[in-house]
């Protein structure tokens, strides 16, 4: 376990230094700030965040509510625009893209896993999984689809509709949907937030294996210590700044760290 508590300005350098030389960052952000509202009522959700996401790793973003972790993820995924700063995904600077280019970038490079699954109720499990490809007008690779169905453990539930699946199964479908296009990066927003603890474990395990076996890069926002514990790297946010970065940290250590930050 390596543990550094550093000033935000030094953060980016630290993250890059920690990088294995073979894999360059797939997502990098520099000096992100995000201000909501104007004048006296203005709120600074991010106050200068820089980070790199290395390929093939699971990065967890933790922090108490109001720390800016969701805002950070939305900006990294191109769903929200930073007030200042720049995000680069797969070499493309997001600030230079219009809505249509951003949409195409999301198709090619980004997958999403949501807290409330967000499956289409009228489509079958397999249709939901194939949705990103069909929206992009691409033909699925049958072998990869079968492999993926096996990996998420729903090979025998392909033709079930979401209403016929349990919460955990629905989230597996959502993970399949995020992985199907082999995106550069998958963003997961509280993926276990709506699940019981046993199911949460299964989902975390599935995400972990996706990183290890498929070399899928994942950024996960969570406030659950147990979820963050599977990550290669945990970024702690407080008041719009990255205040701490830890590698291979245990759930217990995370709980302690969060307590120090003032609540979970």
């Amino acid at each position, binding site marked *: 376990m390596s543990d550094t508590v550093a000033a935000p300005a030094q953060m980016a350098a630290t993250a890059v230094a920690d990088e294995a030389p073979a894999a360059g960052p797939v997502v990098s952000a520099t000096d992100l700030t995000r201000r909501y509202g104007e004048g006296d009522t203005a709120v600074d959700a991010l106050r200068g965040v820089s980070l790199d996401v290395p390929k093939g790793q699971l990065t967890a973003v933790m922090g108490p509510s109001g720390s800016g972790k969701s805002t950070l993820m*939305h900006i990294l*995924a191109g*769903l*929200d625009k930073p007030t200042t700063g720049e995000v680069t995904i797969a070499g493309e600077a997001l600030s230079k893209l219009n*809505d*249509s280019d951003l*949409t*195409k970038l*999301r*198709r090619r490079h980004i*997958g*999403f896993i*949501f807290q*409330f699954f*967000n499956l*289409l*109720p*009228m*489509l079958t499990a397999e249709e939901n999984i194939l*949705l*990103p490809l*069909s*929206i*992009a*007008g691409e033909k699925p690779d049958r072998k990869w689809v079968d492999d993926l169905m096996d990996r998420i453990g729903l090979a025998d539930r392909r033709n079930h509709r979401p209403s016929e699946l349990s919460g955990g199964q629905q989230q597996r479908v959502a993970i399949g*949907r995020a992985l199907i296009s082999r995106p550069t990066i998958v963003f997961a927003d509280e993926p276990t937030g709506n699940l019981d603890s046993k199911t949460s474990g299964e989902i975390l395990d599935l995400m972990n294996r996706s990183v290890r076996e498929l070399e899928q890069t994942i950024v996960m926002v969570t406030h659950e210590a147990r979820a963050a514990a599977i990550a290669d790297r945990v970024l702690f946010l407080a008041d719009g700044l990255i205040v701490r970065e830890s590698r291979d940290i245990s759930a217990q250590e995370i709980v302690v760290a969060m307590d120090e930050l003032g609540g979970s």
Partner: protein
Amino acid sequence: MTKFALRGLLGRKLRTVLSAFAIVLGVATVSGTYVLTDSIDKAFGSIFTDSRRGSDAVISGKAAFDLAQGNGVTAPAFNESLLEKVRALPDVRVADGSVNGEAQLIGKDGKAIVYGGAPNLGFSIARGDSPFNPLTLVAGTWPQGKEVVIDKSTAGKEHFKIGQVIGVQTLGSVQQLRVSGIVKFGSVGTIGGATLAGFALPTAQQLFGKPGKLDEIAVASKSGVSSDQLLQQIRGILPADTQVRTGTGQAHQDSKETNSFISFLQKFLLGFGGVALFVGSFVIANSLSITIAQRTRELATLRTLGASRRQVLRSIIVEALVIGTLAAVIGLFAGLGLAKGLFSLFNAVGFTLPNNGLTFETRTVLVSLGVGIIVTLLASLRPAMRATRVPPIAAIREGAILPESRFARYRLPAAGLLAVLGFASLLWGLFAPSLGTTGVLVFMLGGALLVFIGIALLSVRLVPPLAGALGWPATKIGGTAGTLARENAQRNPQRTASTASALMIGLALVTLVSLLAAGIITSFKGSVNKIWKSADYAITAQNNFSPIPIAAANAVAKTPGVLAVGNVRVGETLAFGKRINTTAVNPASSQMFSLEWTQGSASVFRTLGADGAFVSKGYAKSHHLQIGSPVPLTFPSGVRKSFVLRGVFAPPTGGSPFGSVTISQAAFDRFVARPQNLYSFVLMKGGQSDANQAALDRTLNAFPNSKVATRQKFIDNQISGLSSVLNILYVLLALSVIVSLFGIVNTLVLTVFERTREIGMLRAIGMTRRQVRRMVRHESVITALIGAAIGIALGIVLASLLIVRVDFIVLSIPVGQLIIFGIAAIVVGIIAAIFPARRAARLNVLEALQYE
């Protein structure tokens, strides 16, 4: 709670406005109809009152029986010697006689001046300063000898000035008369599209073929004489062929025809307003139930806070009441605009109505508001009942679904029962042996209403398969967006069905009309082709249906190259106690017509003689007539004559030009003053040729209101009249289609709103704005097509039922038109989707994803 309902409406402004719009259009039609017909009524009323101003009594000719009105047959004129006798009566201060008739003015281009189907009024002016003269001189002098005064509007439009010569055609060929003056009718600016031509009495008597005769004597009494006293005195000297009425009584009599026309127009237009309101009620009911489904949690929260079911019910009803009132008030005033629009519409299709300013009666206000509010309230009942079933627990549970009503499982059987009852009632109305007109209408309208409601409820079952089939092209054209659109359309069959049903009603009616029209056209063509034997040309009036003076046919007979002219005279007689259309033919007609004779033979045409008659098979059957049976006829003049049946023919499906009884032209001309032809048919040396056509055209130059047509042209001309009626019907039915378009917009807006998070997800995983728009648009088109499919099918069924009953129409499916209706439905879908699709595409991805 009431306050809460009102706040809710303000919070959902867009939805409220969209729902209200459906009712606005319906109410506007109702109010517009009243404003239109009241305005026409008032304009006509002042015309008739003006024209009898100054008359204390009016003496007119009396027909032997009540003549049908508006077909050119008038009461016989009486001897003018009566005038001197009337003037000699002690209580009579002044009396003047007049004649009148149809006087066609001819424009400078040699063409008849016709404004739509409006009449061309011709009459005598005894003296300009007569107290009975309703005209005022705008310029010039009153007519003398070979002079005429014409109305200001015609003079202006056709650029006639005083001193110029104008062609006037009455019974004979065109007469050239000098314009001595320009006149105006009473206080009215325009009297519809009617043209006026006033002549000196002797000129008019000569023009209208009534030498030494009068149609009317207007009488003013000395002061202090009561009208009873005057009438009594006049009655003492009246001959049998005349009658007397008070001035107002005569004005009332004059207005009978237009009154029945106005009341028909009123019912006709109100019918369409009713359809629009009926469709609007579907739209209101549907949007209220969607809103309630979406507000489940909110209503449940209210219930946990202690609101009773009754309070929930009341809050929904109050909401409907507010929407209904709002819509009714807007619709009431929109009706004024609509009335103006209808005036222009009728004008544009050549049917000018008199307009003396718009009339806004209290009744219009009461009925419009009442109907709008009541329809909205009725439509809100079912959604309101649903709302009361929201349990308090739904406030806590995610995605709680409304519990079904106890009667839910009876819903489909009940819908089926409604439809069956509706069809039964329709069939009873159509085929029951002895129903009065009212009975037939009640059963048919009630039946149609039940059928529509029943089918609308049943269509829940039809939506999934129909969406599957009709959505197939969308999946091919629209890719994933199309596929998702099809899935979305099937997702809530109830909602899609209700939305589509509104359009279904409009399209069923449009289809019904088009099938009836196609049936009439097909059978008419078939009849003409069957009956038309060897004639080369037909002579008809310019408007294709008015009777024409026989002088035209007589002149045609003298045209070089003409071998024979077969005439069909038309008039009215009384037979077996009933007024019937009576026609007459000359011997040459035998060369023109080929009829199927069930008794007698084609030689009947030539052997009718002075007392022969032939009748149609149906008439013979209902009056038990056989060859040799006597057929006693009474003519309008009062002359009775018994004819002998010489033949019975079976008319083809599309009808024939012949009336119930047909006699010989010679006999007809003996008993009918100023006979007229319906059509004449011409056989020419060399058949149809440019030279022959030119020769006939030359002859008819003197009869500008007649024209020549080949068989094909004759058919086309007759059908064109039907086409303009058809166009009016389509325009009026389009109103209900527009209402249903708003229904689709409404449903889509609500649906997009409901699927906000889902759209956010789709955008997040790579759906472009364009794809989102496409998805909404395809769903809209699929919904519209479902409505079209059910509507067209239902329209075909209803039309078939009617056609089976009505024996002069054959069933003919206008495939091309039905395809056009389908395309129109697609267009409706595309238009309806514009606004909701844009809203959906504009959603901010992030906000949409976080939307609850």
